[in-house]
């Protein structure tokens, strides 16, 4: 098996006086979708934000593509090939959809074939190309948020709850787009509360609790074991 694209080794992250991550051990294999699961407040978002450099790990190492990025500044991490889709979408609402996309293609002009692919995944973005992003609906804003990460080929995508609060039709669009991204061989670390989406997309799963990864394995195994789900997360996928 090849080296993982991302490896967290005993990562501890504090936010103010709170010890949020307490020795996270995690691997994201290349070309796979790795799910990060767990109840609210167990450190999933903090894990993604520690990888992108928003929060600094005070202990442990974050290895990306063979390089230690623990102390690297966020822009340098992003430029080394990490695309990040935050939970709050983080779109620039005063800018147009086009400007949002152009900014996201930080390494140069947008590749037209890639843009066509993004448009095919998220048709509303083409319709509202010249509109201010602040005027988009919630679902369209989420599409834009993911499209911004997809507009350039990244070595790793960190995606935080892309279907949160969205209507079922939009959730299907999101899941389809992420499947297409996966089909291209992208490496994705995905935080997702919608277990149907998680089951459909995930290759491997990591379940977190209390700032640690308490279980790692194949997504199919977790999806097929209701007792395991109950034990790890206090709920069963069957219910979803």
């Amino acid at each position: 098996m090849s080296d993982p694209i991302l490896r967290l080794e005993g990562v501890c992250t504090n936010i103010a006086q709170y010890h949020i991550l307490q020795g996270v051990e995690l691997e994201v294999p290349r070309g796979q979708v790795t799910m990060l699961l767990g109840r609210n407040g167990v450190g999933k978002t903090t894990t993604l934000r520690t990888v992108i450099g928003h929060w600094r790990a005070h202990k442990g190492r974050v290895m990306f593509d063979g390089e230690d990025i623990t102390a690297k500044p966020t822009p340098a991490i992003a430029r080394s090939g990490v695309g990040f889709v935050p939970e709050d979408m983080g779109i620039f609402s005063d800018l147009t959809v086009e400007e949002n996309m152009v900014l996201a293609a930080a390494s140069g002009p947008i590749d037209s074939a890639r843009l066509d692919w993004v448009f095919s995944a998220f048709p509303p973005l083409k319709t509202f190309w010249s509109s201010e992003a602040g005027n988009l609906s919630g679902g369209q804003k989420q599409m834009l948020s993911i499209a911004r990460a997809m507009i350039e080929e990244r070595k790793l995508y960190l995606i935080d709850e892309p279907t949160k609060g969205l209507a079922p039709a939009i959730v299907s669009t999101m899941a389809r787009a992420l499947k297409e991204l996966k089909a291209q061989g992208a490496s994705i670390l995905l935080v997702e509360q919608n277990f149907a989406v998680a089951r459909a997309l995930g290759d491997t799963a990591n379940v977190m609790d209390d700032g640690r990864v308490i279980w790692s394995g194949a997504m199919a195994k977790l999806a097929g074991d209701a007792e395991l789900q109950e034990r790890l997360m206090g709920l069963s996928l069957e219910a979803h």
Partner: protein
Amino acid sequence: MLQSLLSGDMPRSRILAVILVAILVCLALAPFLFPGVRTVDTAARICVFILLVASYDLLLGYGGIVSFAHTMFFGIGAYGVALALTHMGRGFGPIFVGAGAGAVMAAALALLIGLFSLRVRAIFFAMITLAVASAVAVLVSQMSGLTGGEDGLTFKLPRALGPAFKFGKEALGGELFGVTLNGKLLAYYFVFAGALVLFLMLLRVVNSPFGRVLLAIRENDFRAEAIGYRVVYYRVAATCLSAAVAALAGSLYAVWLRYVGPETTLSMELMIDILLMVVIGGMGTMYGAVIGATLFVLAQNYLQTLMGAASGLVEGVPVLPQLLSADRWLLWLGVLFILSVYFFPTGVVGRLRGGK
């Protein structure tokens, strides 16, 4: 052509377009439309303040950075020209040397302040600029041997920009539409052209990819970083550019006034005026600088006169003459600004463009 001149940033409102064209025409033809020392002086001040406010808008409206040192940069440019003309003699060379040196010095100072404070949080920048601006104002007052202290410096402009210089005698009889063709007229157009060119340059900057990144940083700096933009680099670059343009505005002001002093270029009152002009016109629009500066300078110059006239008209009516007394113009100026902020929370331009 117009699209290209305005860098694709059209007014996007018919009323706004009409107002902007009216202001441009009035300023371009001010010496002929409103001949008179006071009116032309007001027009020149409007030109300078449009540029100064636009440079501040680059920082506050586009970069989301609050600075209290903008008058310091303005003053550096003004003193640059004053010192160059005082020590190098009258001529265009010293004007350009002084303006260039002032702009470079302002940018260098902004770089220093920015690198020390913008790395942490933008609020530290505001605090540090306040401290540095106060220190520089005191320094300028104390170094009277060089700066003239509280009295400031009076200097001579090139002959071609002085009232004694006449031109067009043979071709036009020395007059055009009843206006004497002299150096003061040339000085006005020097200020007008300088302000116009620099304003269009700022418009280009904010509509460039650099300007878009600034807007993105203003809205969500972490997200901008997560895309790969070095937020500090962009903030510092915007600060330096803004400082350099403010210094050039100061140079134009010095050329127009033929005088610089701490009160006219470095005071905190002036800083507050700039803030008000940006807010009234509309932050992050550039055209807001045009509207805000025009309204503010006109109010500053003519509200007192208007109120004096209004007070005379309502003589005999109880209370009103006292309320409208010319001495109370500052009170009404304040009321006008409170009302404008209340009714135009996104500034005049924001409102005209259909914002809330």
